[in-house]
């Protein structure tokens, strides 16, 4: 194992290709461990949306050595619990340990990642849980909105389907699918581990080496759709979902933008920051919320993804003010594309990026997360510091150029969830409105 410096920490690769990052942060006797496996929903095979999610949920359901209850107790004995996060690109497993418990914690994590049992009865239970979760989500406008947005704006793309799957695809997934998906994707070459906290990096390397010292399957490409990453075609238009009990309209307008590793990402991030990403100080919040009182939350975001993540603006507002809010938002997107960014706005963004660095690395969890982010998007060491340098050097024209190149309000998919009688006719002011069934 070769240990090389990586920013303030180290990077090393274990036999089989497992990549590990470690950074010492000794203020408190705790350690954060985070593992990311490139086995997200984008890897789900056709007709099996939700397979990634079922697999990651089932990792907690027992290993070859420990049944589900014994595994839960083993983490709790260390005062912690295992956190699993679903995702489009990656699934994440993370936990926080007392520094003195790190060896035991890593051994448990290795067991969960690489020796899951996938008991047949637990496969059935997790399937029922996910179906029930979907039924529960049908009561929440925001979940309907997000699912509909991806369904329309990413049709035909690996990000099209909900991460948790659909009723039909969940019903089709078998235990054999789960076992195969795990064998193909939970392999050393697709796994990255980051450790930050009260531990010497050399000792972390040693501990990981021992915990993961068993044969690893060679990386084979998974059967899923990730091999074909087309840039999705935009689906402009107004798409409406009827939810009869809503007093508010929930709206989201946007489109696929650019991958996290795209050279324009930082400039576009700054454009989005000024537009809708700076909380109450952003232009969208200022006009929709502060000046007009139309919404509690209004803003925009650019989602970092391995493939082209979405840009979208969002708000919740009364049915009567929905069209006005959409027009205000659209005008602001147009303005960031057409007008040069005032030097003062750009300067504010530069200062915010630079000043926020200590807060983005304040906890051991933050530090481990930043290491993972660098690894997953191949951003190199000290990527946050280097991003600040790049943002500091941006000229107003570069920000506008990125906005012009990658924000397209006329191509945006507009999804509105709300009450039909109050909304449908009003929305026609924006053009043709297509009603789509709720998920």
């Amino acid at each position, binding site marked *: 194992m070769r240990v090389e410096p990586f920013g303030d920490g180290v990077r090393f690769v274990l036999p089989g290709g497992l990549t590990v990052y470690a950074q010492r942060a000794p203020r408190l006797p705790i350690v954060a461990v985070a593992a990311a496996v490139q086995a997200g929903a984008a890897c789900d095979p056709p007709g099996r949306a939700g397979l990634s999610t079922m697999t990651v949920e089932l990792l907690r359901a027992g290993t070859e050595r420990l049944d589900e209850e014994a595994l*839960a107790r083993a983490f709790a004995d260390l*005062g912690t619990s295992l956190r699993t996060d679903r995702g489009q690109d990656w699934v994440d497993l993370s936990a926080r340990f007392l520094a003195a418990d790190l060896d035991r914690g890593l051994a448990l994590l290795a067991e969960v990642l690489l020796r899951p049992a996938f008991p047949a009865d637990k496969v059935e239970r997790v399937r029922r849980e996910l179906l*029930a979760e979907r039924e529960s989500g049908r009561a929440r406008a925001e979940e309907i909105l997000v699912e509909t947005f991806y369904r329309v704006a990413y049709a035909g793309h690996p990000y099209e389907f909900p991460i948790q799957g659909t009723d039909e695809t969940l019903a089709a997934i078998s235990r054999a699918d789960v076992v195969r998906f795990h064998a193909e994707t939970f392999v050393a070459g697709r796994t990255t581990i980051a450790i930050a906290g009260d531990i010497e990096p050399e000792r972390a390397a040693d501990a990981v080496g021992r915990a993961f010292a068993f044969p690893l399957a060679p990386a084979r490409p998974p059967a899923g759709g990730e091999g074909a990453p087309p840039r999705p075609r935009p689906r402009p238009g107004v798409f409406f979902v009827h939810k009869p009990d809503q007093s508010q309209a929930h709206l989201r307008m946007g489109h696929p933008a650019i991958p996290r590793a795209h050279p324009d990402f930082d400039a576009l991030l700054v454009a989005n920051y000024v537009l809708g990403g700076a909380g109450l100080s952003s232009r969208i919040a200022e006009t929709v919320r502060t000046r007009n009182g139309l919404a509690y939350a209004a803003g925009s975001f650019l989602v970092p993804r391995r493939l082209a993540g979405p840009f979208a603006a969002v708000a919740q*507002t009364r049915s009567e003010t929905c069209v006005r809010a959409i027009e205000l938002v659209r005008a602001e997107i147009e303005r960031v594309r057409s007008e040069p960014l005032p030097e003062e706005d750009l300067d504010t963004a530069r200062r*915010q990026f*630079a000043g926020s660095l200590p807060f983005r690395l304040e906890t051991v969890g933050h530090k481990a997360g930043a290491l993972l982010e660098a690894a997953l998007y191949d951003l190199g060491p000290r990527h946050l510091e280097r991003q600040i340098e790049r943002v500091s050097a941006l000229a107003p024209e570069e920000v506008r150029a990125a906005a012009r190149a990658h924000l397209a309000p006329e191509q945006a998919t507009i999804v509105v969830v709300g009450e039909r009688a109050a909304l449908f006719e009003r929305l026609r002011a924006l053009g043709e409105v297509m009603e789509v069934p709720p998920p």
Partner: protein
Amino acid sequence: MSRADAAPSLALEVREARLENGLTLLLVPDPAVPVFTIMLWVPAGGRNERPGTTGVSHYLEHCYSLGSSRLAPREIDRLVQRLGGGKNAFTDHDYTAYYESLPAHALERIIEVEADRLATLALPEDRLRSELDVVREERRLRIDDSVAGFHNERLMAAAYERHPYGRPVIGSAEDLARMTREDVLAYYRRHYVPANVTFVLVGCFDEARAVDLFRRHLGGIPAGTRPDDVIEPEPPQPAERRLTVTKQGAKLPRTALLWKTVGGDHPDAVPLAVLETVLAHGDASLFERVLRRARQLVVDHSTDYYSLRDPCPFTYRAEARPGVELAAIEEAVEALLAGIARDGPEPGALERAKKQIELAFLAGLESTSARARAIGRYAVTSARGWRWLIEFVERVRAVGPDDLARVVATYFVPERRTVVRLLPEEGAA
């Protein structure tokens, strides 16, 4: 590893100072970080409101960034942004709190700003009106259009008939519709005075200089008087309360069980907090194991014990799995609690819970904002002040199995229990 090794370092050095006008300062200098968090704590929240003006605490929180004698509306947002920091605020039953996290060099600037808005808040009429619209949208989002928010509002109202904990912190829709500038101004003048408020400062600063800056910029504000709030106590409840509500748009039935317990200063608050961990924290907890996994009764559930000044709720909320009767969930919860009252916690469960609490406490010391939040919350909700934070962790170590059995037997009884079921209402689809 020995117990002593596992124990977190409790060397949380809080320096206490009081200005001549009564303003309280709690300072935690920490030269190891390049930043600080400044946090204003006002012991005024839903608890201090009267019927007719519910929501005024939270509305004032929204208005607190709308300018003062030397600050334009929202100028504080832009200032914090340009300094590279972050800010937020929150309102709860017992308090309202505001914080900014900033680089070390910004200390004097932010103290000037906090002094200006504490003394000379502007409350311009036009801005107030649009901010009230924002709050009403927030209420629609969080309560009226939210199955969980609506359910919780009904639960608290049913459990607390007289005490203000039964009223919504965000305010009733009716009260918000008729809220006036005079309501907000009177509330601000009554509660936002040096004699009543506390500033917590955690992070990179020199203690003597910080005290001097606070004195220079805030020492001249007239002290005011600490409001003598008379809170109507909740009368004893003769028997269990049960209620069923319906909600259009809900898909799955829900139930919530609430037991009124004790105020945060009561010695039993400690075993109750440990009980919450035993029941509901992590995959190995009793409720996760039995209710979710073994019996598969719930889609989602939560257990909350969040100590407040006055007798506060211990709550279990669940959304039923399709086909599961709510009675089955309620009976299962009662049976598990009865088991603890009879036999104490399961072997190992108490030790695991204690270790979870210690690790969570340590992790809560990581950021300056988390430290400021923990210190301030105890400072304004406990008669013991911020010291309760330290004492709390020490007392957790002394909790025994019998303590858990005793608090369950004492507080989880029908005369303290309110059960509110929520059923989906069949509406036109």
